[in-house]
C-alpha cells in the first residue's frame, strides 16, 4: 500500500512540476552535480533563456569572470555604443580551467546556439596541474557525461529528465555533516547571483598591492607551479576544442581580465606573460577565434580588486564598461560584432 501511494504521489508531483510553473517558482533544483556553483549558473541560464527567449552572448571562464563582468553593464554600454541590443549571460564558474570550459562550450552551443562565446582566459588555464581536481570531478559527473553525449545511466537519465528528481536532488545529502552549511551557503549564493549570472563581490579584502612572499608556505605552491612556465599541449588542445564551436556558427572571442602586476611576480621570467601571449594569439586566430588584448592593469585601481586576479563589485562595474568599449571598437572599426543568436543558427 505504501509503495502504491508513493508511486501515485511521485506521478502526481512529476505531472505538477511539468504542467505548471511550480518548477521555476520553487527555486531549489539540482542535477546532482557536485559543483554547486555550476548548478546555480546552469539553472540561472535556463531561467534566463525562458525569460528572454534566448541568449546571444555567453561569457565563459572561472571565478574571475563570475565576479568580474556584469552582463547588464556590458550590454547597456555596448548598446549605447553600437545600437545593438543583446541578451548576455555570465557563465563564469569557480575553478573551471580551459579543460572543462571547452566541454561546456560545446554543450552550451548545442543547447542554446548563442551568437557569441566570450571566453576569458589567463596563464593559469594552461598549467597542466592547475584545477585538475575540479576538472575531473565535473567531467566525470554522470549527468554531465550523459548530457555531453556519453554513457547514459538510469540515475543520469532520471537526474536529467525527471522534474520530481530535480527538485529532490538538492536534499540528496541531507544527512551529511556539511549539509546545513553547504545548503545555506548555496542558497545565499543563488540569491546573490543576478538573473544574468553575475555574482558581485562585496567583501572588502584588497591585498592586491602586497607582493607575494616566496617565504610564505601558502605561496610556495604557486611559485613552484609557475617557476618554469610553459603552455601545456593538453590544455591547448582543450582550447582548440573550444574554438571548434565556430564551425557551428558561434563566434568565439577570447580575452584576459586585467591582472594585477604583482601576479606576474610568481613567474621567474619577467617576459613570461608576453611570451604566453605570443604563443596564444596566433593559436586562437589560426582557428577562427578573435583575441581581444588585455586592457592595461592601471585602469583598475587596487581598491577595486579583491586580489591579484579577482575584481570586486567596483572593479566589475569599471571593467564591464571598459570591455564593452573594447568590443564596440572592434565592431565599429573592424566589423567584428557581437551577434544575436539567430545568426549562429
Amino acid at each position, binding site marked *: *500500500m*505504501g*509503495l502504491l*501511494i*508513493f508511486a501515485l*504521489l511521485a506521478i502526481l508531483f512529476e505531472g505538477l512540476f511539468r504542467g505548471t510553473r511550480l518548477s521555476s517558482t520553487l527555486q531549489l533544483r539540482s542535477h*546532482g552535480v*557536485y559543483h554547486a556553483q555550476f548548478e546555480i549558473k546552469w539553472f540561472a541560464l535556463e531561467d534566463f533563456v525562458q525569460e528572454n527567449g534566448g541568449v546571444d552572448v555567453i561569457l565563459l571562464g572561472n571565478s574571475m569572470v563570475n565576479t568580474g563582468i556584469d552582463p547588464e553593464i556590458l550590454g547597456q554600454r555596448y548598446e549605447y555604443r553600437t545600437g545593438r541590443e543583446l541578451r548576455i549571460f555570465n557563465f563564469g564558474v569557480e575553478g573551471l580551467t580551459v579543460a572543462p570550459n571547452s566541454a561546456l562550450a560545446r554543450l552550451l552551443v548545442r543547447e542554446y546556439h548563442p551568437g557569441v562565446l566570450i571566453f576569458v582566459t589567463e596563464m593559469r588555464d594552461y598549467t597542466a596541474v592547475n584545477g585538475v581536481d575540479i576538472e575531473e570531478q565535473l567531467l566525470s559527473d554522470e549527468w554531465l557525461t550523459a548530457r555531453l553525449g556519453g554513457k547514459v545511466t538510469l*540515475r543520469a537519465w*532520471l*537526474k536529467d529528465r525527471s522534474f520530481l*528528481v530535480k527538485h*529532490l*536532488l538538492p*536534499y*540528496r*545529502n*541531507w*544527512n*551529511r*555533516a*556539511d*549539509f*546545513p*552549511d553547504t545548503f*545555506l*551557503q548555496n542558497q*545565499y549564493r543563488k540569491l546573490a547571483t543576478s538573473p544574468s549570472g553575475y555574482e558581485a563581490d562585496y567583501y572588502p579584502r584588497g591585498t592586491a598591492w602586497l607582493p607575494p612572499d616566496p617565504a610564505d608556505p601558502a605561496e610556495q605552491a604557486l611559485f613552484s607551479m609557475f617557476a618554469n612556465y610553459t603552455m601545456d599541449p593538453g590544455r591547448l588542445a582543450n582550447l582548440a576544442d573550444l574554438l571548434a564551436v565556430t564551425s557551428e556558427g558561434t563566434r568565439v572571442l577570447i580575452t584576459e581580465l586585467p591582472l594585477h602586476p604583482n601576479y606576474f611576480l610568481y613567474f621567474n621570467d619577467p617576459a613570461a606573460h608576453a611570451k604566453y601571449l605570443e604563443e596564444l594569439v596566433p593559436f586562437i586566430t589560426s582557428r577562427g577565434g578573435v583575441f581581444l588584448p588585455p586592457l592595461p592593469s592601471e585602469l583598475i585601481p587596487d581598491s577595486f580588486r579583491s586580489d591579484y586576479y579577482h575584481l570586486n563589485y567596483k572593479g566589475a562595474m569599471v571593467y564591464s564598461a571598459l570591455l564593452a568599449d573594447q568590443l564596440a571598437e572592434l565592431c565599429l572599426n573592424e566589423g567584428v560584432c557581437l551577434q544575436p543568436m539567430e545568426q549562429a543558427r
Partner: protein
Amino acid sequence: MTVTTLLFFACAALAALIYQKLPQRLRQPWLLLISAAFVATWSWQFVLVLAVFSAVNYALGRRAAPPDPRHKTWARAGIAVNVLFLLVFKYSDFYLPQFSKWLNALGMLEPGLVLQILLPIGLSFLVVQNISYLLDVANKRLPPETNFARFCLYIFYFPKLLSGPVERARVFLPRLASPLKVDRALLERSASLILTGLFRKLVIANSLFNMIPADAFITPLDYPGQQLLAWLIAYAFAIYNDFAGYTAIVRGVSLWFGIELSPNFNLPYYARNFTEFWNRWHISLSNWLRDYIFYPLAWSLRRRVPDQNHVLNIVLPPMITMLVSGMWHGLAWNMLLWGGLHGLFMVLERLPSLKKPPVPLNKRPRWRQRLGVLLTFSLAALAWVPFRMELPVALQYWQGLIKWTMPDFKGLGLVIIGWNPLWSWSPLGLPNPLLIVMLILAITLDAHQHRAGSEEWLLNWPRWAQVLLVFALLLVALLAFFADTTAPFVYQGF
C-alpha cells in the same frame, strides 16, 4: 551485494518464491545454491574458501564426537584450526608485508610487490559458530552432523552470513530441518522486522554517521568539547542502529524461508548495568562468550579457588571474556582497551556483592535504576571511543571531551532575530541541529519499542501509520540512491 539494496530484496524475494514452490527434499539444496550465489556476488573465490572451511569443520566434527577416545583432542585441534584460519585471513596485514619481503629477497616475488589475501566475508562470525559446534559435539550436546550439504548450509546460509546473528548449530540445524509455515502472520512479522531494520539503518544510522565530520575522529582536538560529546552520543546511537537495523533486516528476510534467526539486540541503552548491557547488546555473540569463555573459566577457577568472593573469581572471568571480545573485534590495542574497559566496568559492579548480597535490578528503587541506565550509557559511550579510533587519537578524544568552549550565543541570537544571515552552524560552536533531531528520533524509537515490549512493535501500529513509514522509507531510499556517498554496515568489517 549489500542487504539494503533493492537488488538484494528482489533476489531474496524471488529465491523465497521458488523455495516455497519446491518439494521439501529440494528446498535445502536450493537454499545452499542461492547462499553460494550470494557469496559469489562478493567474490567467487570466497565460495571456494568457505567450501574448504566447511569441509574441514565437517570432518573435524565427525572426529570430535564421543565415543572416540581422542574426541576432545580433535575438538581442540578443530578450535586451533579455526583460530588459525581467522589469524591467517583476518590478520594478514601483520605478517604478509614481512613475508613478502622475504619472498622479494629470495627472488620469488617481484621487487616491491606485496602479497595480499582477500578476507572472506563474515569470517569472524563463522569461526565462533564453528567453535561452538565442535565444543557442543565434543560435550555431547549435539550429535555430529552427518549430512555435508546441511552442514554447508549452516555455514553458508546467506541471511546470517555477513554479520550474524551467531547461530549455534544445535539451535539452527533443527530450525532448518523443520521450518516455520510461511503464512500471512509470518510475513507480517517479517515486514515489521524489515521495515524497522531499514528505518534504523537508512534513516537513523546512516544519517548519524554522515553527520559526524570525517576528521572528528582523526584530529578531535580541533573541535570544542561540546561538539565532541554530541558526536560521541551520535556515534553510540549510530553503531547500535546500524547493527540492530542490519539484524532486523536479515531476520525478516530469513522468515521468508520460514527460518527463524536469533534476536541480537534488546534495547541495550536501557541496560541498568554492564551485565545487563551484554545481555542486550549483540546477544548472540554475548551468549557465545558467556557459554564458551565466561562459564568454563569461572567453573575452572572455582574448582581451584572455591571461595566465590575471591578476587580471582571476581576479576578474571569477566575481564578475560571481555578481552577476548575485544580481540574478536580486532587484534589491535584500541580494541583490547575497549574490551578491557567493559571488563573493568563489569568487575566494578560486582565489587559491592563482596559485602552484601546483590539486590536484583528490578527490585532496586526506580531512581537507582534510572541512574544505572544513565551511568551505563555514559560509560558505554566513552568506551566507544577506543572502539572507533586508534589509541593515541582515542586519548585525545577523551581529553577533548572536557575542553568545552562557550558557544557563540550572541552570533546565534543575531541569526535568530534576522540581523545576520546563517552561513554556517560550525563557527557558532554548536552541533548540527539535524543531528539533534536524529538523536531524538532514535531515542523515541527505542522508547516506543520499550513501551510496546517487542521488536515487532510496528505490527501494533494502525495501517495508515505503517503506510506513512513505508512512504518515508521510500523517500529516504530514493534520496540515498542519488546521494554522493553511502555508508556500509559497520559490523560487515568483522
